[in-house]
């Protein structure tokens, strides 16, 4: 992607709880990303279709579809996009499923601001190195 370095990475936040989305936005407000958000998997899939999303940070337990299932679709649609899962139930998801979907990192909820920022920074660094 020729303009990848010219524009800010596009990060899509997905959570069925709007307050979580706004808290995530607050946390990442000053980070060097362009933020998008979706309150459902369906909405997230629509965003994926229309926008060149670089990173997807999704909740796991959502009505209709789990975050893992969403990220699987993301992988099919935008294989270059980096996929992160954020959930309070890290231990209840089988690790082999997480590996199968190619999730780069599972972030536990509630998150630590610094840790979350660091995870995203690493993800975007990978992105930049891939070119």
């Amino acid at each position, binding site marked *: 992607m020729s303009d990848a370095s010219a524009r800010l990475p596009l990060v899509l936040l997905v959570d069925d709880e709007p*307050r*979580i989305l706004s808290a995530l936005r607050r946390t990442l407000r000053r980070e060097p990303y362009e933020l998008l958000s979706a309150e459902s998997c369906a909405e997230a899939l629509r965003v994926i279709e229309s926008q060149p999303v670089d990173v997807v940070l999704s909740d796991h337990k959502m009505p209709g579809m789990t975050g893992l299932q969403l990220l699987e679709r993301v992988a099919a649609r935008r294989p270059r996009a980096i996929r992160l899962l954020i959930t*309070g*139930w890290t*231990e209840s998801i089988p690790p082999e499923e997480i590996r199968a979907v190619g999730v780069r990192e599972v972030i536990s*909820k*509630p998150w630590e601001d610094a840790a979350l920022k660091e995870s995203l920074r690493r993800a975007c660094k990978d992105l930049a190195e891939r070119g």
Partner: protein
Amino acid sequence: MDQPGVGDTTLVAALGPDASPSWLRVAGERLREAEIARVGSAAECQALARSRPLDAAVVDARVGAEAEALVAWLAARAIPSLVLEPAGSDSAALAWLRAGAGECLPCGANGERIALALRRLLARERARRDALRREAASDVARAHRDIVEQLNSALLVVDATGRIAYCNPPAEQILGAGFEALHGREASDWFEPAGEGDETLIARSLRSGARFKGAEAVVTRPDGRRVPVGMSCAPIESADGTRSGVVAVFQDLSDVKQLRTQLLQHEKLASIGELAAGVAHEINNPMGFIHANLFQMAEYVQDLRRVFARVEALAQAASKSDSAELREVARALAAEAEAVDVEFVLGDLAKAVRESQEGSERIRHIVQDLRDFSHPDASERVLADLNQCLDSTANIVWPMMKHAVVLEKRYAELPVVSCFPMQLKQVFMNLLVNAYQAIEEAVGRSGETGTIALETARHGDVVRISVRDSGVGISAEHRERIFDPFFTTKKVGAGTGLGLSTSFGIVQRHGGRLTVESEPGRGSAFHVFLPVGEEGDTGE
């Protein structure tokens, strides 16, 4: 002795050379109860003996050689014979007696004498058969006794007045008393009333003839222990229908009961766990954004402070300005700042955010602990950090006891232990709640506090987890029974009496020991000893 024979009618065979010997009529009259049957030959006598029970035979030796054979044949079948002998000598008589004859008289003996001798013979035979039957009967009785005594179940026979007539060794064991202490005592003294009314099952069976099969009852032993039993009991009725007592068979159900209640306890905990997990999940989401927002708010406060410092500097400068307008703005700003007490507000805002962060941090831990606690055990043992298990359990119960308890923690470095962590947390929870209740009982409403010390240590291949309290302590007589199921000293509703017995079972299943030391009035200490296990030593 009107009935000399043993059968319904006494049958006597008579063999002799005469078709109708002279003694027969008189003897027949004397022995009215007997039927004397004339036989023509030894073979005929034998045929008679085969067809009907023959009680005795009169054999006249004058029939020749077959007399001797017949006497021997009869003797072999335990049928007594009276021989009429022609020589009339002692030696001849002796020879016949040796040959198996029961009596021997000269051939000329009259009917009277013969009847007398026959009667004697029959009486002797009856006595012999009676003795035989008695012996057989006592053999049967002995077999019965063996069956009853070697029965695995407890067996109790109660007489018509409700007193214990007999009990077998298992019954002695369950009732907690020896035979001599039980025999003749009121059976109902050993049982709690069961079902409706104030009666024991045995008393009810005795009174109404009711039968019970596998009914639940509770034995109260002289040492105070209560033993749950499964009991079947039935009245003993004589041939005429009167009740002569009750027989009760019962088995100790302590183990069965304990298993069942442990299972129940597990189920209960599992459903509480599910509920807790659901609640934890629901709390987790709002926690997530509160936590994040507070963090952000703390940063915003810093931002605002920096900005306000500049504003103040600007106002300072403006107040010295030549422009009246600027001086007025600066004055209004200073007045407003003073009215609001901006310095205080900014400081307090930061403090409020910090305190809220602290609170949210605490909620996060509680949620985490709840989730750990509700996380069901896998069917296999896992390696767990027991300090962490103990600590997270203490965190759960801490809020309910903190008004009365000072918690001291002395954790040693422990190797990971192969165990079922959820079950061990249940043990720690039981010990902590008991410790708290002991302290509560000691301090009452005085407002004083007690101490619970949590201590872990390693002794070679064994780790020890101790919960020590400064509560009321346990009296010596209670100390032996605290691990019994259903034993409780707590008020009704405050304890099931299962906590410690369940804990004991759990620790035992881990191959460990649960021990207690206590000083009444000073406090108690419970120690859980657990083997590290082979894999446990390999570390994390």
